[in-house]
Each structure stands twice: as C-alpha cells, then as structure tokens.
C-alpha cells in the first residue's frame, strides 16, 4: 500500500508545561474534525517521508487514527492511502 503525506491545520492545546494535546484536525475541505481522545503518543517511524516525527494515536469519529507532528518544522501531517485508480490524488 502506498501512502502520501498530507500536511494539515490543527487545533492544539498547550498546557502550562508545554505539553501538546491535539483537539481537532482542520481538514482541507473546511471541516473541523474533533479528536475524541489521544490513546498514545511517542516517536514512531512514518510510512511517508519524515525524519523522526512524533505520532499521536487518536480516536477520531469512533476510529483509531494517526496524526504526526514534525518538531523540526512544527507542522502536523496525516498519511493518506494512495488510490492507484485516482489520478487526481496521484498528481499532487
């Protein structure tokens, strides 16, 4: 399965110690998709190009999803499954 990297906007809460909690994903179509719960987080190798991102495993809309944070450039991304039959997705 091929994956592609999609940077996303995020709503994140910082507590007084600097700890981040992702609250919602700001999806490219304008929707705000709330993060129900963070199940776990820690450094994990991604399937797409990224050096040492931090992975947040979250419950989103009743399903387990992974959000990644790149500390080097302070951006969040998700991994999208690439559909071979969809040229629009591939062209990005």
């Amino acid at each position, binding site marked *: 399965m091929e994956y592609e990297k999609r940077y996303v906007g995020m709503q994140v809460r910082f507590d007084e110690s600097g700890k981040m909690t992702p609250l919602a994903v700001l999806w490219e179509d304008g929707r705000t998709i709330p993060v129900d719960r963070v199940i776990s987080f820690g*450094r994990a190798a991604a399937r*797409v190009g990224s*050096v*040492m991102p931090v992975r947040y495993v979250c419950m989103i809309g009743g399903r387990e999803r992974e959000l990644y944070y*790149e500390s080097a*450039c302070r951006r969040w991304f998700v991994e999208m499954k690439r559909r071979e039959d969809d040229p629009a997705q591939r062209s990005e």
Partner: protein
Amino acid sequence: MRTILHSDLNNFYASVELLKRPELKGSPVAVCGSVENRHGIVLAKNMIAKAAGVKTGETVWQAERKCPGLVRLPVDFPSYHRVSARVRQIYQRYTDRVEPFGIDECWLDVTESVRLFGGGTAIAEEIRAAVKAEIGVTVSVGVSWNKVFAKLGSDMKKPDAVTCITPENYQNTVWPLSVGELLYVGKATLQKLNKLGVRTIGDLARADRALLAAKLGKWGNALCAYANGEDDSPVARVDEEREIKSIGNSLTYHRDLVDNDDVYPLLLLLSESVAARLRESGVGKARTVHVSATDNKLRRYGKQGRLTEPASSASEIAALAFSLFKEVYPWSDPVRAAGVSVSDFTGKTEQMSIFSDVVEGRKGEKMDRAVDGLRKKYGSRIIQRATILQDDKLKKAEIGGAHINTPAEEPPEED
C-alpha cells in the same frame, strides 16, 4: 564478567536520507559531497548501491560507472546529528554508560542492568526493535564481555541483527576472521602482521607474544590480548568528559590554488574555525600546529611545528600553519585541499614567559573573545577578516563546528 554492547547504525547517512525520501527505498542511493564544490566523493550508500559495488570514499563518477541509475543525495549533517542524539537517548534507557565512537556507533556497558532487563541479548533485541520502530532506521548490535569483541559482533551480521560473542563461541566465530577486522588493526599493522604469517584473529591470539612485541612494540602485546578477549577498557559514562587530544578542520577548495598567496586565505579560515573551537573547548592553548595539503593529483603533504608560545588565536595558528606549509609544499602541482589542526594543549592554567609581550598577547585574546561573542550572537559571518572577504566562496562559508559549510553544501530545507 561484564556485558558490553556495540551498536552500529546501518548505512547511517543513507538511511536518514531514505527517511525523508522513502520512495527511493528500492533504488541504489549514495550520499555524496557536492561535485560543484569538488567534495564529489561517496560518503555513504544503501545496501542496493553497495551490492552494485559502490564504495565509500570513491569519487562520484567511479560510483556512477559501476552503478548506472545511482541516485545522488546531498549531505545533511544537522539531520544526522539529530537522529544520532535521539538514538543515544534510546540507549540511555538501559545504562548511563554510553560511549560514542563516531556519529553512528556506540558502546554500552549494561552489566548493572542485565538482571533488570533479562540479559545482554534481550537488551540488544529491545534496542534493535525500538530504534526501528521509533526512528525508522536499523542497527546491528554485538554483545560480548569486552569492547573489542562487541564491536566485531556488530560487524558480523547486518543490517538489523544481533550477534553474541561468548567465551564459549569466540574461538569458532571470531578466530577465523581476517586479522584486519580487529579494531585498531590498520593498514600498516595489517601488513606487519601478514609478514609474520598472522592472517586471522586466531593466528594473532596464538602468536608468540615476545615476537609480536619485538616487531610491533607494546602494541603487539595489546593486540594479542584483544584477540583473546582480554580487554578491560571501560565504557565511558554519558556525562564523562572525554579528553580532547586535537582539534582540526580541513576543506577541499572549489578551485585549485596556484601559489602561496592563494593558499593563505584558506589557511586563515581554517585556523579561525580551529581557534574558535579551541577557545570554546576549555582545554587551554595549543603548543603544536599541524598543516596538511593535498594537490590536484591527490598526493598528500603534511608537517607539524611548535609554537614559540602556546596560543589560542587564529592569527598565531595561521602564521605557523602558513610557514609550515611553505616549508613542506613543493609546488609541483596546485593545491586542492588543506587542513589545519592543533594539539598538545596546556590545560586551563598557563605559564607566562618573561620574554613574550604579555600585554600584546592579552590584547589579541580580548579581540578574539569579542569576535567569538559577536559570532555567537549574530552568526559566524557578522565579522570577517579582510583577507577572507576577498574570496566570494570563503566569505560565505560558515565556520565553527566540526565542519565548514560552504554555500553549496548547506543542507536543504526539510520538506
């Protein structure tokens, strides 16, 4: 008996580059210096390029001839340092005795924690799995009771593997290996050993120690001991300061340098970076300066000399480096690369000589400190010597740190 691990990051630079570009996993990949700036050699390669015969240290065109379709990637030292530091944090979950050997290798003494984690092999397996899952690169780990055999172990199975060398199996696993595989056996020593009929590590282990001592000095005895697993050198603690023996820097220039006046700015730039690191390291001043030069036919020249007074300023180091260079370099061909290093440090306290102009020295030191301060605050290019400003490429070079980054070598932005 101790439990020592040696962990080696496989094809390190290339592996980090593949984290950024996972789509290249199936292609032959080499991390190379910039051809434009004439650092065009292979610094690292992945397994596919290796299988095609690409070797570290060969020129890019040699590599491309052996391996058409080789993907060349530029070096990105900041990323390698970041990954290396993170991997060391994983090691430190198991022990505070973690001693780096270069950017991609470490020894770990886990003697005190084997009971906690279920043995040396178990720790090695946990480390292997953690590095792969958390960072996305692989390590090979050697497990033994001494540093020399642990290092051999990490070389025996690659990538992503654990090899144990025990008192029960070392004669079967280690002794058949070529003696050149043993740590500290370099090219010259290997030749000497081969002349004595010593070809394998087993030969060395069983060799007559008196004969070895006669031919190789005390090294002979030490090497023989290593071959028998008799190595009790400790693994340094994380916070232990390691003794700095020399500080140096070298640079391949973007064009050939044709005369002494042409070489001087380069030596000055190198001396500046060396002097800045010397002052930062807190080892005092240096007594000895060493200069090296490589001509465009890749012949190397070098000479060292003592400073009349220990020094930490760039101008004094550069002055001696320049005079040594003029003594040693025959000018049969132009200069391609040069290096400056200093050694034989005074330590923090200093003895003053009644013959030297102390006040003048202090003035120079004050100026150096002021320059260091400015560069720390505003970047290394905020203040420069007029000599260096004459050269466009040198002017833009970033000094300080172990590498001089010339503009074309500046790492790309991460995506």
